[in-house]
């Protein structure tokens, strides 16, 4: 090829690669950043979240691949290419490789972003390479799908139809799972919504679905490039891999170590499970500071844990300090406003949850079933104190701090006596309030508090 046209080909290839890489990176980072509370600092979730970059990334790659293959038909020079003696793999190869390379580069950039966000915080584990295999496989799948649509569909529509392809595959899997009332088909995608906190997907599934998608993409690509025998072999390989993936789809592998508790001694004693170890210190600082507002007496003999299951599931407690459970246990989850669990602390949500653990949790019905039944007065007082807690921290009192929260504002508006109690409690000096709470700690923690006299 002459220098001029070679330069032109290389320029087009580089433009395709850079364009696809930039767009893939941009959409990928936006997508995974929107889910940051689910993965930052936690390697298993961080490894899996890269898969979400493929949702729109695959649509982009498929659309561009379709455009590449359909362009000669649109420009009415496809027959010139079809009658070339040069293999079709070389005719379309550079452009399609540029699309695939750009897509892969974009995902690597997204991975770089994820690693850069997680590495400084992570205390456990490392990047799970097997979780990344389906992402690489979806590059092949998207390019193959795009090339096939580009060959078959009307040239003007091909990029749009191809771009819809990966999204339709995703939606089909989601709806199939909803219809079947189980998680199965979404396990076969490069992205899934399963948290990797305490469970992981079997490595066999990750490998099998990666092989399956790579072979599906390769089969389509080879068919478009007129390598029919190789296309046939890829199709058979995809079928075998799909059979293997179907065997393990829906299966989850327990990660026992993730349940172990790590505790920090002191008052209160604070514990998190290993899955949240990376935010343990931050969690502890926040909880200790929050409880500190209620006086030292309120923290004495108290263990704060990040999940109720931890008390039941943790077989042994590790970390500093004594391992004996303390008599008073408060559960303060790490969650974002609408999801649970999370790997990033939302200070407002954690403050609201701390108040809930101290004031409202002792009045919950399940504690009543366990013989810790409170009184009606105790319940009303708890609502008033929780209202004060939220107000003191500048949090909304309309029940919007987390799903299912008691709306203390309207509750107090309907009960003037309770509102008066909350007002009097709020009007106390800090010292008086601490003394008041210290004196009534047993009543507060058993939901038998009497309002201010």
């Amino acid at each position, binding site marked *: *090829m*002459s220098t*001029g*046209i070679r330069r*032109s080909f290389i320029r087009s290839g580089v433009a395709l690669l850079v364009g696809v890489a930039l767009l893939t990176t941009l959409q990928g980072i936006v997508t995974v950043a929107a889910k940051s509370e689910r993965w930052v600092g936690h390697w298993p979730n961080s490894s899996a979240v890269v898969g979400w970059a493929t949702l729109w990334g695959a649509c982009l790659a498929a659309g561009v691949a379709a455009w590449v293959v359909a*362009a*000669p038909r649109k*420009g*009415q*020079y496809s*027959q*010139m*290419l*079809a*009658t*070339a*003696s*040069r*293999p*079709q793999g070389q*005719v379309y190869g550079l452009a399609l490789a540029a699309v695939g390379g750009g897509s892969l580069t974009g995902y690597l950039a997204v991975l770089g972003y994820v690693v850069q966000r997680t590495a400084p915080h992570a205390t456990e584990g490392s990047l799970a390479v097997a979780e990344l295999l389906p992402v690489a496989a979806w590059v092949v799948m998207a390019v193959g799908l795009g090339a096939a649509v580009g060959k078959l569909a009307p040239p003007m529509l091909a990029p749009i139809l191809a771009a819809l392809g990966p999204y339709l595959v995703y939606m089909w899997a989601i709806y199939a799972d909803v219809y079947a009332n189980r998680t199965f088909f979404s396990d076969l995608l490069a992205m899934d919504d399963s948290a990797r906190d305490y469970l992981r997907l079997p490595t066999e599934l990750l490998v099998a679905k990666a092989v399956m998608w790579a072979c599906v993409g390769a089969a389509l690509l080879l068919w478009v490039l*007129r390598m*029919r025998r190789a296309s046939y072999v890829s199709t058979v390989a995809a079928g075998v891999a799909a059979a293997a993936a179907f065997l393990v789809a829906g299966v989850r592998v327990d990660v026992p170590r993730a349940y172990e508790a790590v505790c920090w001694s002191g008052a209160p004693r604070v514990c998190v499970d290993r899955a949240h170890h990376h935010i343990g210190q931050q969690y502890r600082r926040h909880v200790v500071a929050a409880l500190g507002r209620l006086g030292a007496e309120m923290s004495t003999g108290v263990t704060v844990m990040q999940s109720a299951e931890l008390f039941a599931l943790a077989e042994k407690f590790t970390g500093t300090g004594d391992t004996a459970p303390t008599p008073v246990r408060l559960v303060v989850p790490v969650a974002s406003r609408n999801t649970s669990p999370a790997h990033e602390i939302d200070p407002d949500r954690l403050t609201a949850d701390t108040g809930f653990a101290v004031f409202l949790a002792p009045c919950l019905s399940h504690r009543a079933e366990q013989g810790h039944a409170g009184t009606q007065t105790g319940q009303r007082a708890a609502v008033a104190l929780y209202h004060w807690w939220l107000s003191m921290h500048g949090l909304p009192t309309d029940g919007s701090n987390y799903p299912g929260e008691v709306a203390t504002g309207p509750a107090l508006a309907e009960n003037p006596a309770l509102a008066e109690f909350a007002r009097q409690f709020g009007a106390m000096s800090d010292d008086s309030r601490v003394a008041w709470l210290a004196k009534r700690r047993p009543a507060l923690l058993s939901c038998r508090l009497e309002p201010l006299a």
Partner: protein
Amino acid sequence: MIGPRVLEIDNVSFRYGRRAVLVDVNLSLGAGIHALLGRNGAGKTTLIKILVGAAAPSQGSVRFESATISQNRGGGRSALRSIGWLPQEFGYPPHMTVGEFVTYAAWLKEVPRARIRERVTESIQAVGLTESGSRPLRALSGGQLRRAGLAAAIVADPTALILDEPTAGLDPEQRDDFHRLVRSLHVGKVVVVATHLLEDVEALAENVVVLDSGAVRWVGTQQQLAAAGAEGPGVRGLRQGFSAVLGRAQ
């Protein structure tokens, strides 16, 4: 090893859905200019596409220099290298100049890298577009565009040249120029010109194949076709001969 320079069409049929477009076409075309003559819809373009490997026959095969034409086989690909094609309507990658387009065609036909520049220059010169080599294709007139297409078709120095309605849309002067050009290029090659214009047949063809309803109705020389009518040589004679041949066939 390269076989004799003959384009062998053996029992070629082509169906489009349930419609038979070509029915048992058998032809053996040696060096020289052959006109593929037929009315619109006779199956000329379909046969041409099969000859150049752009379409696969439903049945039968096409061989050139002893190799079956196919993109999927090594020998078939070498046959494709030996065939140049000027489609009836052709497009081009946007923004390409004449030189780039012909270079691209050379690359597609696997002209050795060291010879590309030389072959591109020769081909552009042969079609009389030397002055326009660096002009964008979209800036060319219809006649110039045909010449650029012909330059792309001959850049790999093919031994078979297939031209589909090459003068369609050209004015009489451009048509005469094009006839002269094809005559100058044909030496030692198998040239097939699909056309419905008897002027093309008169100006170019030594041999004529009459195609009608997807089947070969008549094969002979230009003089024999003219003799089949009552008007003698010339376009009028060919027209009479063509009508007579088709009338006899029906």
